[in-house]
């Protein structure tokens, strides 16, 4: 068994989860404050990647970043490498597809945050950044974690857009998902199943870790009085 897909999948999933984590949280934070109609419109745009078949999403990404498109040309001229059909192309695919999950979940969490805590932080002279990371985020921990877990799982499982943007090149762009798909498609069900198990193992590790983390943070959650 060639372990490249594991390595590649992990780096793509981790990097895109990190990207999605921050971009999703910031989008959620700023959008949560807006007027509901504006929110609605932005929601539609940001949730778009969810309502389209991933392959079609991949196609749009390709139209945007392809080597013959302005951005792709500029990137090639500047960095001497193509944005598509490389291992990191999977990052674009996974990031865009996983983004709505983080965004929407984080927004839900932020909107149920008790602003009094943030006010009290402000009157204590704490910077908004500190309040954001040390008060708001931990208080919204559960929602944020749900979003992160979903985004990570989605990034790990992403197949359609990745296969479009990065292609399935064994040893170069293959991820676990595209490998599973190809193996399965070429009737190598056994090996495909092994890779499925690998994916399950990864998500098991992540999910268990997240649950342990949660437990540590919630010792004796009861409100006094």
């Amino acid at each position, binding site marked *: 068994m060639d372990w490249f897909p594991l390595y590649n999948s992990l780096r793509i999933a981790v990097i895109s989860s990190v990207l999605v984590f921050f971009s999703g949280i910031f989008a959620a934070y700023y959008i949560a404050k807006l007027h509901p109609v504006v929110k609605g419109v932005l929601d539609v745009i940001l949730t778009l990647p969810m309502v389209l078949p991933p392959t079609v999403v991949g196609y749009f990404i390709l139209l945007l970043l392809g*080597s013959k498109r302005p951005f792709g040309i500029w990137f090639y001229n500047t960095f001497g490498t193509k944005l598509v*059909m490389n291992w990191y192309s999977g990052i674009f695919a996974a990031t865009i597809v996983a983004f709505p999950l983080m965004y929407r979940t984080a927004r839900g969490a932020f909107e149920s945050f008790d602003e009094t805590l943030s006010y009290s932080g402000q009157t204590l002279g704490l910077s908004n950044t500190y309040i954001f990371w040390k008060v708001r985020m931990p208080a919204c921990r559960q929602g944020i974690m749900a979003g992160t877990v979903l985004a990570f799982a989605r990034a790990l499982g992403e197949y359609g857009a990745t296969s*479009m943007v990065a292609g399935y*090149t064994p040893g170069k762009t293959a991820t676990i998902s595209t490998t599973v798909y*190809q193996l399965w*498609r070429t009737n190598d069900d056994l090996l495909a199943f092994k890779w499925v198990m690998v994916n399950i193992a990864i998500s098991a590790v992540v999910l268990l870790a997240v649950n342990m983390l949660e437990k540590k943070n919630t010792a004796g959650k009861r409100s006094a009085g």
Partner: protein
Amino acid sequence: EDQTDVVVFAAASMTETLTEIQEMYKEVEPNVNLVFTFDSSGTLKTQIEEGADCDLFISAAQKQMNQLDITADPSVNEDGLDFIDDTTRMDLLENKVVLAVPENNQADIQSFEDLGTDKLNLLCLGNEDVPVGAYSEEILTNLGILDQLEADKKITYGSNVKEVTTQVSEGSVDAGIIYATDAYSAGLTVVDQADSTLCKQVIYPAAVLKNAAHADEAKAFLDYLTTETSAEVFESVGFTMVKADDEEETEAVSEAESETAAETES
């Protein structure tokens, strides 16, 4: 030691065979490192069109190859794409279109002709993009039953071959039209094989790309694919080699096929 990467975009139906040949080719040409990208021919074509690096393209049908070939009929190559080096283009393999049925064949379908009868409830085809889909439609058109089947909603389209084979093996459908190679590797029961009266020869064309970084190495590999050693691998899964002396004839067929394809398109 300097390694040359040769990038090969190949139809997914060739995954097993090409991977096997890759091992063998290492001994022949240790300095060449073959980098495969497997996908459905349509996806590969899109990727090439969008500027993916590729030295050698092996399609599962003439259509996708023609769409990238400036010398092909403009009604097929609608966008006037000029990606492949026509001089290196060749017909590499032949596949057969077969009718596969579930294990116990409850609907008792024995031939392509049976598809027009009441025995059939649901038939699975690949969609047009899956090359076998185009051939399947040709067969049904030649039998004069395509429109009726569609009107009766007796056709379901799978988006890739595995989908079709699975639907057949799981008995979700009464029959499916696929390639012999796919039926072989999926271990399906084949009840009929399309002859030349029903559909044209199924050809896997190959060509080196015009802007290939390693055109010579790619050509060399393509040549290797036509050797006896490679042929053995291909034939072991049900492909037939297109003989060099068939070349003339094949050319003609491919010409004719382009026309049919053009008709379907409009």
